[in-house]
């Protein structure tokens, strides 16, 4: 339990002090009891299990891709704490505006495994999230989604709703003009947006030192007169606390918050990337020791809330579930000609109907040919 503070978290870890906010050290030892999040042991265990779950989905997605049963996929390995924390903090009335590497948050926001497999398996159906509200699909053009979050924030205020928009972006994304326009607009309109930069050290092959000369990414908040903080993104407890405070800040009309979550992409950029071209195994090994699941596990074991052997069992159970879901997914109905033409417009132009008809005529002809 945290003590009552005189300074807010954002004052104490002001980005101009260039101090990273963390609760645990790399070995899972609590080094900052003062800011320990308001979480029961049960909640922490739930988060720990969920990180395992998300990681298992992620690893299996990579393997399905390797087996040729899915297409390009961006591994989340090593970054699970961030999305998991966001997912647990988010309320139903909040919005999730993803980049594409926060699987854990997607799952917690209500994406089903079927949605996930559909999307990365190459179908737009996977971006519908029929069972989940207030949830935008993946935004491929880097950083463009951040502006949507500002508009959503504006709309919530306009409609006197108390929701918060959670928007994700990578370190590379901070170089885009849209990053700037989004944070600037959010600042001047004072919209309830929590921007989360997953600084995983690389944009494909380009290290963050080649993205910007600024001393941190969190400090960019100063340029917009908004609140900012740098957090150890592999420290689940710190992430949970920071996002909780940020959401509260935004929800109570104090304006947007920029969180830089410092982490590492332990896998490849996507399944078609080869990290050995641009980084060393030493660097990778160094970060392996900071793995978010490893660290929270050490904390739990130390506190006698978890046993060494439990992980394997858990993962085995998850694997089964996921495999079952994947088999289900593989039975999805085939893509149909209607799917090509019928979703672009609310009122489909005649022209498109004619194009569809011409394609159908051809397909019919083709059928008669063989």
């Amino acid at each position: 339990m945290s003590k009552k503070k005189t300074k807010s978290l954002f004052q104490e870890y002001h980005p101009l002090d260039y101090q990273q906010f963390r609760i645990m050290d790399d070995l899972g030892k609590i080094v900052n009891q003062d800011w320990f999040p308001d979480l029961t042991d049960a909640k922490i265990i739930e988060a720990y299990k969920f990180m395992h779950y998300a990681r298992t989905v992620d690893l299996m997605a990579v393997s399905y891709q390797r087996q040729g049963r899915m297409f390009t996929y961006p591994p989340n390995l090593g970054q699970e704490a961030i999305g998991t924390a966001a997912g647990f903090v988010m309320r139903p009335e909040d919005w999730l505006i993803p980049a594409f590497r926060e699987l854990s948050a997607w799952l917690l926001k209500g994406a089903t495994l079927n949605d996930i497999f559909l999307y990365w398996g190459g179908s737009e159906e996977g971006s519908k999230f029929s069972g989940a509200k207030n949830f935008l699909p993946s935004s491929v053009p880097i950083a463009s989604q951040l502006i949507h979050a500002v508009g959503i924030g504006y709309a919530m205020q306009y409609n006197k709703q108390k929701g918060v928009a959670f928007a994700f972006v990578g370190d590379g994304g901070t170089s885009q003009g849209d990053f700037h326009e989004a944070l600037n607009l959010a600042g001047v309109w004072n919209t309830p947006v929590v921007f989360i930069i997953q600084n995983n050290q690389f944009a494909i092959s380009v290290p963050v030192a080649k993205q910007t000369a600024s001393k941190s990414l969190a400090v960019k908040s100063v340029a917009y007169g908004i609140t900012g903080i740098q957090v150890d993104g592999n420290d689940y407890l710190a992430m949970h606390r920071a996002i909780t405070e940020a959401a509260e800040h935004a929800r109570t009309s104090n304006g947007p918050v920029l969180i830089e979550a410092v982490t590492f992409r332990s896998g490849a950029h996507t399944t078609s990337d080869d990290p050995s071209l641009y980084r060393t195994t030493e660097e990778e090994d160094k970060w392996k020791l900071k793995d978010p699941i490893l660290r929270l596990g050490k904390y739990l074991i130390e506190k006698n809330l978890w046993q060494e052997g439990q992980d394997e069992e858990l993962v085995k159970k998850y694997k089964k579930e996921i495999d079952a879901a994947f088999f289900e997914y593989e039975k999805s109905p085939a893509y149909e000609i209607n799917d090509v033409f019928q979703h672009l417009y609310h009122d489909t132009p005649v022209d498109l109907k004619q194009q569809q008809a011409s394609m159908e005529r051809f397909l019919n002809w083709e059928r008669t040919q063989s």
Partner: protein
Amino acid sequence: MKVMNMVQAINDALKLKLKDDPNVLTFGEDVGVEGGVFRVTQGLQKEFGERRVFDTPLAESGIVGAAVGMCVAGLRPIVEIQFSGFVYPAFNQIVSHVSRMRNRTRGKYNIPMVIRMPYGGNIRALEHHSESMEALFGHVPGLKVVIPSTPYDAKGLLISAIESNDPVIYMEPKRIYRAIKQEVPEEKFSIPIGKGKILQEGNDVTVVTYGAMVREVQRALPAAKKDGIGVELIDLRSIYPIDKDIIRESVRKTGRLLVVTEDHATYGVGAELMAIANEEAFLNLEAPPTRLSGFDVIPPLPKGEHLYFQRPERIYYELQKIARY
């Protein structure tokens, strides 16, 4: 009925829809306090307040992108781009999100957004203030693109655009913002998107045009009439979807097509309409479908405008050539 120019008619449509629907809001650079550099939004902030009608930072990507977010959250934003020449910073948002969000989410989220922008030239303006790049938008799947040529159409088309659940690029021929006055009903009425209009019937040559060029063609008609050329004049009104029916029927009748546009010829609107004439009325063609379009160069600054923009004389010159073919 009230007599209005195009600026007033657009203002009237905005006012009407702001009254009508609490989800409608409008914003852009200088749109609020000043009422827009062309005064199209004059008086709206006063009437509807700063939450619904407001000034934004100078950031077109931000303006359009924020509107995308508002749409998915249930609002119906109308944004103003100060001049069409400044829409390019927002091009990524338009091509990657405005036009695609619905398809991407299989209809879960509509984008009922209107992007208004004055366009077109021959107004003695600085660089980037004279372009007619409607074909760029027409080529992007997922958008609808309309261009009015009269105050009446401006109001009716804008109301349709605002009520459309699909995103509409609404381009305003600024050259005739105040040039034409007309009786326009004060109540709500709408003109369907995707339908052209026959402004004059004739049997010899079909002329298809839109926006400020309608008036220029009309100025060429007396000379054509004197020559005994029966011109069927069509105002296209929608750049996408295109009213193929109206083109087909007319060209089947006249056998001759002249497209008059302000935009650049190559990969422009003229080419598409010529292609449609081929696809829809080939056997009726008595002369090659023709375009009188802008040259494939940057529109000159004011001192060179007379050598670039369409004039009635040139339209007449092309008309008689095709009539005589």
